[in-house]
Structures are given as structure tokens and as C-alpha cells.
């Protein structure tokens, strides 16, 4: 910023311009990890979040397995398979929530 030598009152002009441009969506800013403290960061909040994620993935797994069984007449097979997959998906959800954050983009 050699042009700014004479204008000490405006050293932040470039910064302000950049901020204004990013705010108006002209320059796309590097998107930061969207994990702002949802549900509170207390121990109870985290516990509740993890529990809900595990349970909901399990519900979806059981639901899919049950409907596939009814449809294909393979009574317990699909339920057993999808309960396991649902549990896996629950763990994957929790990992995505709690695991090391990689920069989103």
C-alpha cells in the first residue's frame, strides 16, 4: 500500500473496501466452519445433542429396515442390517459434530 503513505487518516480504506465488498457478496470470503455454539455449550447441551443425533439415526435405520422387510418379506434380515447401519450413521453424525474440525469450503 504505497499510495497510502501520504494519507495516514485512510490506512484502513482498503480494509474497509474489502469488508464492504465481502458483506455485499462481491468477494466471497473464506467460509468459516459453521459450528457456532448451537444448543449451548454446556455439558448438558452437548449430551442432549449427541443423544438426539444417535437416537434419530437409529430411528431412521429402524424405519427403513422395517419398511424394507414389509415390502420384500424378508422378515428380520433387513431390520437387523439397518439397525446396525443406523447405529453406524448415528456414530458418524456424532463424529461430524464432535470430531476434529476440518476447514469447510
Amino acid at each position, binding site marked *: 500500500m504505497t499510495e497510502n503513505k501520504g494519507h495516514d487518516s485512510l490506512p484502513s480504506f482498503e480494509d474497509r473496501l474489502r469488508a464492504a465488498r465481502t458483506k455485499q457478496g462481491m468477494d466471497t470470503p473464506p467460509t468459516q466452519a*459453521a459450528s457456532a455454539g448451537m*444448543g449451548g455449550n454446556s455439558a448438558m447441551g452437548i449430551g442432549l445433542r449427541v443423544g*438426539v443425533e444417535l437416537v434419530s439415526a437409529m430411528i431412521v*435405520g429402524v424405519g427403513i429396515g422395517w419398511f424394507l422387510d414389509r415390502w420384500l418379506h424378508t422378515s428380520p434380515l433387513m431390520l437387523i442390517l439397518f439397525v446396525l447401519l443406523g447405529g453406524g*450413521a448415528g456414530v*458418524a453424525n456424532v463424529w461430524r459434530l464432535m470430531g476434529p474440525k476440518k476447514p*469447510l469450503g
Partner: protein
Amino acid sequence: MAAEHTIDALGQFRLSPALGPLGASVNFSQSNLMMLISGAAILWLLWAGMRPRAIVPGRLQALAEIAYTGIHSMCTDQIGHEGKRFFPFIFTLFFFVLFGNLFGLLPFSFTYTSHIAVTFGLALMVIVLVTVVALRIHGLHFFSYFFPAGAPKLLAPLIIPVEIISYLSRPVSLSIRLFANMVAGHVMFEVFASFIVMLAGIGTIGVIAAIGPLALNVALMGFELLVAFLQAYVFAILTCIYLHDAVHLH
């Protein structure tokens, strides 16, 4: 409320027809009535708040402006500049949930967010929108979302079902979180309120002892106000995060 020595904690969530025989004939419940009231309240807040059009806003105008800019910055922060397109949706969603939670705390009213049918309906709307947005922006490339790049091909039969279930569990967890929080709060209110009535029935000692649950309910009301805001915020911000995933895909 509480009958003789029984606590009917779930009776408050029962639907009953509103607006007399006309409402009964079309199954118009008090839940629908509260939805209409909160919708009208949101419109009134924005209309009455922005009517003065003052440079220096009054209290109501400041509230309306904070509501608008708060959700607007949430959209642009979480989704990126494409988020402006989803702003009306997020705004409606946030305030519908927030006013449902808040109006539910008023005596003799009804919390429509305490019904899983309502919250799951909202969550379903969110997930359908997210999927449609992702398909429109990325086309069939969207399905690469279910198989992370760099994973060994051998694991595909395991990873793809797990990712699909994980994706489908989003609306379920979104709806259960809101519904469970609301039900839990209102059940606690009911239980402690029943304790007050039961203790007061014992006699003088009971009346003094009833101050305990009464104080608890007062504290709980403050906590529930926090939960009402927090859950509406979580619902909106998770929708934003899902939309971010849909727009940017990974």
C-alpha cells in the same frame, strides 16, 4: 388442572376444537388457532414496527430491525452471500418457531411446537428444500455427497448406506430436538404446578411448603424463555448449515 392426587402432565398437549361448532366441523384445533395468532403477531410486529420509518428507531422499530438484520446476518454468515436468497424462508421459520415457543408459555395458551407432527412437518420442509437446492445447483453431482472423496472403494457398500441414513436422520433430529425440549419444559411446569396444589391441600404446613415448587416454577419460567429462544435459534441455524452444505457441497 391436577385432579385429586394425580398429575395429568400430558393432558395439556391434547388437541381440542377451537372457534366453536364451525371450528369443530373442520377439525380446527387450538393448535391451528395459535399458529394463526403467532403468524398475525409476526406480521403485526413487522408492520407496526416499521410504520414510523424513523431514522432513530423507537423500541418497536428497533426490535423489528434487530429481527431483520439478525436473521439476515445469520444467513449471510452461515450460507455465504447466496444465503440472501434463503433469507425469507429462514426468517419465517425462525419466527414461526420462536413465537410458537413464546406464546406457548402464556397461561391458557397452547404450544404448537410441542407436537411432533408440527416440528416434523417443518423439518421435512427444510430437508426437501435443501435437497432441491442441492440438486438444482449441483445436478447429479449432488450424489457424490454420499461418498466422500478419497474413501476406499471397497468400503462403498458400507459408507453409502450410512451416509444416506445420516442424511435422512437430519429432519428427524431437527424435529425431535425442538419437540422434546418443548414437551419436557411444559411437563415440568405441570408437575411442579401440581405439587403446589397438592401441598396446599394438606393444610397450613403444606401451604408454606408449596412456596418451594412455586419458586421452582418461577425459575423454570426464566429457563424456558431461554430455551424458547435457543431452540428457535438452533432450528434456524441448523437449517442454515444444511443449506450451506447444499450450496457448497462439502
